[in-house]
């Protein structure tokens, strides 16, 4: 757009001229310019500067051109539409000499403007004070002299602000009207010629239309301007075939220049009016009209340049026109096809401008190469200038102090154009245009179109030998084409990249691009692929691929040099400059070499063997022979090298000593065929063993490092995904091909150490349960061993009792690890710092001393059960088999054992009254109905306490002693015996009950007498563990004084027929007389004498005895006659139990001596 002068790029502004009184000019000029629409003003200080009258034009002369180059600018800057003559009031109303001067000036001015039809306005400048002094008469005379309407004469008062503003706005209105009239009149004048077809040639027709349009533009009559521009444009188009005025080349150049101007003005009007759609339609028509008019072949580049300029200017217009109008295509029906989305984007036009400019460049280069004698014209080319008419050129000759314009011949013009073309380099302009387009497309997310612009841009950089810029763009393009699988485009781009890397002497890039090209899928059956125009790499044919493949390997092997044509630097792959390619999962070179690695098993024992298959595939067109393959793992000890059996291992090959070397019969990669290699692999280290790289070496200095991939996770590259090709599986075993992994899990080494937990059955509550643990080495020495002990509740939950959550004390812990005692280490020198021992209630840690093979070590865990609870004991031993390699992983042995915790003994007690003695306890009688279980004991009476001990465990226990410990040392009661050590330990078998009898005589009357605790000392029968004490608290008892005590007395046995005494003794311990009823029932077995039924009185604190004489009649265990004793006062009676009424009756006195043997 900058090609066009400024006055063409902005809407035309009417021009006024101010003459005289220069002091007010700035004021007026500024005001006129600031109004809307503005009026430009040229200022002439005085009337002597009025230009002379215009010489009459000879209209018969045929026109020399279509439009004068400066015609428009002349009207905008030099020929005013209206002249404002400014006089001061002093001159107007002054002396006659001054008045005469005014008249003369006015006449001179009128004479000058008459020929041009310029309108006149008059200003009289006066002072505010003098305003009324100027006589009406004088003013009228002036007006008459000037031949103007009264409204066109303005009294101008510059020194009074309100008046001044009024004057200025009046002046602006008057001048605007006059200018409009001028432009309208001029337009009409020219138009009448058009309507009468009063023109001698087509040129004049175009010129008249153009002029009318310009005058209309001055009047802001856009519609008329547009219509006339269109007329001019059509008339001009007709001239193409008909005009013969000039030599053909220059004629076309002129027509195109004018058409460009016309179209530009039209586009301006349309776009500023927001009619984008119409503008685009017009532009389409414009380019369609002229695209085919290429002109003479030697200057065809001028045509492309012109076309390119059309697009570029239109793009700039579109870009600068209001953006809101840009996206609202008008809905007016357009006869032509609707423009598509891209045609609203300036980027579209920039792109085409660039492509035409490129075309121009090509043609120009061709034209220059064709014309050998360009240089000869060079000197005279300088004298060629643009002539007065738009689009015409002529030679400027200096002839006797005058300049003469001499027309050019076509030949001369062509030379001139060539010489001009040579002066400019278009490449940068092309790149600039493309960059604009590229950025615009990128921002509107048209990635592919942007890529196409990028491609053109990169090609341009390439042609300028700017390889780094070109490579950067080509690389991004290659990514897009790879992703979407556009093979031919990718082939072209890679070809360029190959050349770029050559130019940059980068052998690595060269080899990479070459290999990628060589391994691209073949576009079989497509004739396009054999098209010649496929970039610098030539057609994408198989033979071309093979050629590229060979070139790459020749460079890689160092057999040939990489030399760029432009720079004379040659690059050769040598040992100083080795080539190292790395191929990872996202690398495009994956198709060149793909390495899949699969272990045949998912897990392996340490030191165990596993099979590993390495599958290599290449899509290169020719077989590749690999000299050496190295397989690298994350455990570097497993790395191994596969050498090619066909090639002897040369000294240059890198084989580190100690590394495993395998030899394969041959290592040849054929196109799209898997090279499968299967080897054993052995790892001693537990953990993950993963294959990381497969490195192929070809030649001494060329290495391809390929990241290993798992067959299970393989995905095809996008380029090959859409190809119809033979799919083969990488590993023969199809299951492995689908699921194979490049990593294997190496298990921990099998422990060669036994961990033995000696369980001795269930633990007993209260005892310190000793659990021996033995570590005995079978095949491993033990170093840095550690034994971890964990106690876990088998039912889940903690080992604490529920209420122990708040207070953490040993009482609340059900089971606790108390101690770990171990054998004193044989080696006394062992530093104590090595000994770790940590004991917590449920966790313990102890270090195990170093053991040699075959040795053993043991320790004892002391676990105490406070409550019966089963637990799980976990013991784990971690050790190092060798002391010299601390990095090795520890070997672990785990053992667990469930241990039941049971109660050892259950202790019970029972109170018994002495035989045939019954005290009357009133409270006991009263409480009989209640559920009170508190036993009642009689004061001062002997009571028997039977303690029974039951073995609840599964092992025999040995009871050592039993005692009753009274809590308070008092005489509240006497217990016999207080303590008894069993002389010989009582062995209590499981389930057995052991009973011990104590006597108690309560001495104090109390409702809650504390008896004390039974404490039983026992131990396991099996081993000599320390004895345990189990305590049993006896419940409190009620002690009261018995009121009455009844005791039956009778011999333990009787003889048949022999009488014996059977007496009932009633003891009254009260202070009152007690009335007792007693009766005796008859019995068949006995003959009885004594009171059968009686009531008797027992004196206070005395005893009454009731005696019967019985003679037994039967034999054996007989029931004595039942005596019933009842206290009247207390309504309580004694009913002796059946057991207490038995007596054994012998037939005769036994002959054995019943006396103890000692007495005999």
């Amino acid at each position, binding site marked *: 757009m900058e090609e066009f002068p400024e006055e063409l790029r902005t809407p035309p502004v009417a021009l006024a001229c101010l003459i005289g009184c220069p002091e007010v000019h700035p004021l007026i000029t500024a005001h006129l310019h600031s109004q809307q629409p503005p009026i430009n003003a040229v200022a002439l200080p005085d009337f002597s500067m009025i230009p002379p009258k215009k010489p009459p034009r000879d209209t018969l002369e045929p026109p020399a051109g279509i439009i004068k180059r400066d015609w428009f600018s002349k009207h905008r800057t030099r020929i005013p539409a209206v002249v404002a003559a400014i006089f001061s009031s002093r001159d107007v109303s002054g002396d006659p000499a001054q008045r005469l001067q005014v008249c003369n000036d006015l006449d001179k001015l009128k004479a000058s403007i008459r020929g041009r039809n310029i309108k006149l306005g008059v200003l009289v400048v006066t002072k505010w004070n003098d305003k009324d002094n100027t006589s009406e008469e004088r003013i009228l005379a002036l007006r008459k002299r000037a031949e103007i309407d009264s409204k066109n004469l303005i009294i101008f008062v510059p020194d009074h602000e309100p008046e001044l503003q009024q004057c200025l706005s009046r002046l602006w209105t008057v001048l605007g009207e006059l200018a409009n009239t001028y432009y309208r009149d001029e337009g009409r004048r020219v138009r009448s010629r058009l309507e009468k077809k009063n023109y001698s040639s087509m040129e004049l027709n175009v010129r008249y239309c153009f002029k009318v349009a310009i005058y209309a533009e001055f009047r802001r009559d856009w519609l008329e301007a547009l219509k006339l521009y269109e007329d001019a444009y059509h008339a001009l188009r007709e001239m193409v075939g008909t005009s013969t005025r000039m030599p053909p080349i220059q004629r076309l150049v002129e027509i195109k220049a004018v058409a460009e101007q016309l179209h530009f003005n039209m586009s301006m009007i349309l776009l500023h009016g927001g009619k984008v759609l119409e503008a685009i339609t017009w532009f*389409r028509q414009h380019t*369609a009209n002229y695209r085919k008019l290429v002109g003479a072949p030697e200057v065809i580049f001028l045509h492309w340049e012109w076309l390119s300029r059309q697009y570029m200017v239109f793009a700039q217009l579109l870009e600068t026109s209001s953006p809101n109008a840009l996206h609202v295509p008008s809905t007016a029906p357009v006869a*032509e*096809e*609707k423009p*598509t*989305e*891209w*045609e609203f984007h300036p980027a*579209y036009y920039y792109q*085409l401008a660039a*492509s*035409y400019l490129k075309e121009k460049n090509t043609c120009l280069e061709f034209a220059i190469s064709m014309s050998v004698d360009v240089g000869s014209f060079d000197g005279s080319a300088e004298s060629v200038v643009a002539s007065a008419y738009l689009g015409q050129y002529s030679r400027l000759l200096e002839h006797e102090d005058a300049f003469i314009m001499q027309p050019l011949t076509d030949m001369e013009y062509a030379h001139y154009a060539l010489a001009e073309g040579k002066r400019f380099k278009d490449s940068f302009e092309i790149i600039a245009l493309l960059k604009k387009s590229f950025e615009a*497309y990128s921002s509107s*997310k*048209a*990635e*592919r*179109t942007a*890529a*196409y612009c990028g*491609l053109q841009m990169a090609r341009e950089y390439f042609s300028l030998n700017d390889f780094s810029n070109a490579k950067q763009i080509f690389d991004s393009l290659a990514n897009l084409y790879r*992703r*979407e*699988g*556009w*093979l*031919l*485009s990718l082939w*072209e781009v890679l070809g360029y990249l190959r050349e770029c890397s050559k130019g940059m002497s980068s052998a690595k890039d060269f080899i990479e691009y070459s290999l990628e090209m060589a391994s691209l899928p073949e576009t*079989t*059956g*497509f*004739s*396009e*692929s054999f*098209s*010649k*125009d*496929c*970039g610098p790499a030539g057609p994408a044919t198989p033979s071309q691929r093979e050629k590229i493949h060979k070139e790459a390997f020749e460079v890689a092997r160092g057999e040939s040099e990489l030399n760029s044509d432009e720079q004379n630097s040659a690059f050769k792959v040598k040992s100083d400059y080795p080539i190292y390619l790395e191929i990872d999962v996202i690398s495009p070179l994956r198709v060149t070499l793909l390495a899949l690695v699969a272990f045949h098993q998912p897990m392996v024992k340490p030191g165990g063997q596993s099979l590993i298959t390495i599958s290599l595939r290449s899509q290169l067109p020719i077989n590749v022979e690999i000299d050496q393959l190295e397989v690298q793992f994350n455990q570097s000890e497993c790395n191994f090298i596969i050498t090619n059996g066909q090639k002897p291992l040369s000294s240059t090959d890198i084989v580190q000593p100690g590394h495993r070397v395998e030899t394969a019969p041959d290592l040849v990669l054929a196109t799209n065929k898997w090279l499968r290699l299967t080897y054993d692999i052995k790892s001693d280290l537990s953990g993950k063993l993963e294959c990381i790289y497969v490195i192929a070496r070809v030649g001494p200095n060329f290495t391809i490092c390929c990241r290993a991939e798992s067959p299970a996770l393989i995905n095809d590259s*996008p380029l090959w*995904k*859409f*190809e*119809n090709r033979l799919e083969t599986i990488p590993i023969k075993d199809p299951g492995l091909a689908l699921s194979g992994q490049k990593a294997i899990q190496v298990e921990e080494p099998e422990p060669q150490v036994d961990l033995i937990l000696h369980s001795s059955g269930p633990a007993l509550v209260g005892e310190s349960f000793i659990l021996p643990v033995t570590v005995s080495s079978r095949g491993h020495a033990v170093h840095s061993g550690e034994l971890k002990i964990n106690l876990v509740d088998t039912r889940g939950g903690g080992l604490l009792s529920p209420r122990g959550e708040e207070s953490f004390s040993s009482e609340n812990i059900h089971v606790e690890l108390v101690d770990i005692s171990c054998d004193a280490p044989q080696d006394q020198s062992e530093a104590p710092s090595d000994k770790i021992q940590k004991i917590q209630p449920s966790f313990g840690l102890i270090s195990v001393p170093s053991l040699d093979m075959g040795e053993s070590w043991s320790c004892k865990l002391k676990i105490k059960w406070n409550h019966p609870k089963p637990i799980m004991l976990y013991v784990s031993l971690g050790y190092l088999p060798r002391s010299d390699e601390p990095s090795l992983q520890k070997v672990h042995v785990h053992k667990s054992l469930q241990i039941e915790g049971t109660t050892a003994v259950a202790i019970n007690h029972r109170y018994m009254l002495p035989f045939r003695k019954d005290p009357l306890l009133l409270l006991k009688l009263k409480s009989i109905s209640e559920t009170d279980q508190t036993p009642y004991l009689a004061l001062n009476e002997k009571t028997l306490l039977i303690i029974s001990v039951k073995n609840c465990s599964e092992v025999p226990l040995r009871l050592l002693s039993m005692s009753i410990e009274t809590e308070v040392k008092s005489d509240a009661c006497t217990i016999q015996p207080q303590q008894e050590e069993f002389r010989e330990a009582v062995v209590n078998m499981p389930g057995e009950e052991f009973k011990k009898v104590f006597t108690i005589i309560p001495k104090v009357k109390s409702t809650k007498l504390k008896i004390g605790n039974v404490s039983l000392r026992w131990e396991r029968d099996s081993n000599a563990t320390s004895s345990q004490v189990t305590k049993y608290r006896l419940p409190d008892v009620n002690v009261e004084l018995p009121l009455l005590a009844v005791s039956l007395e009778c011999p333990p046995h009787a003889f048949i027929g022999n009488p014996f005494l059977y007496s009932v003794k009633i003891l009254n311990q009260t202070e009152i007389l007690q009335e007792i009823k007693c009766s005796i029932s008859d019995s068949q077995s006995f003959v009885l004498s004594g009171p059968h039924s009686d009531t008797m009185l027992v004196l206070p604190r005395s005893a009454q005895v009731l005696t019967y004489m019985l003679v037994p009649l039967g034999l054996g265990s007989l029931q004595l006659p039942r005596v019933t004793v009842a206290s009247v006062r207390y309504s309580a009676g004694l009913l002796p139990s059946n057991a207490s009424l038995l007596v054994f009756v012998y037939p005769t006195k036994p002959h054995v001596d019943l006396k103890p043997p000692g007495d005999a």
Partner: protein
Amino acid sequence: MIVCLAVVGHENNPLYIQSFTESDDALKLHHIVHCSLDVIDERVNNPKKSSPTINEAFLGLLYPTENYKVYGYLTNTKVKFILVTTDLDIRDADVRNVSLLFFRKFHAAYVDAVSNPFHIPGKKITSKTFRERVSSIVKSFGLSSAS
């Protein structure tokens, strides 16, 4: 005159591309087809902007280049057909009808080609029969538009 025909898959990958010119501009046609995918993307993503077409599948003129016009067609399975022509002087309505008719015929040929049990969906079309059939369709249209 039809100069190039392309079938483009879901990932904007060419499934079939054939040009019918004697001159050596296959690569340029590839680029034109590739660029036109941007227009299709935009039309498909902003359906309101595009003019109401006779047939949903027919996308109409995608964009004019220097010498060519590009038309698009989108099948129900989102496979794109792209047609590049040099018929710059035919009236719009005619072009629309002719190209729509062409696309219908071409679509039928495509459906037959991918219905081949030996064709793997998503892979390039290499069938010779398809190729010949397309050539004959193009030839018939070339003749009819010339007459």
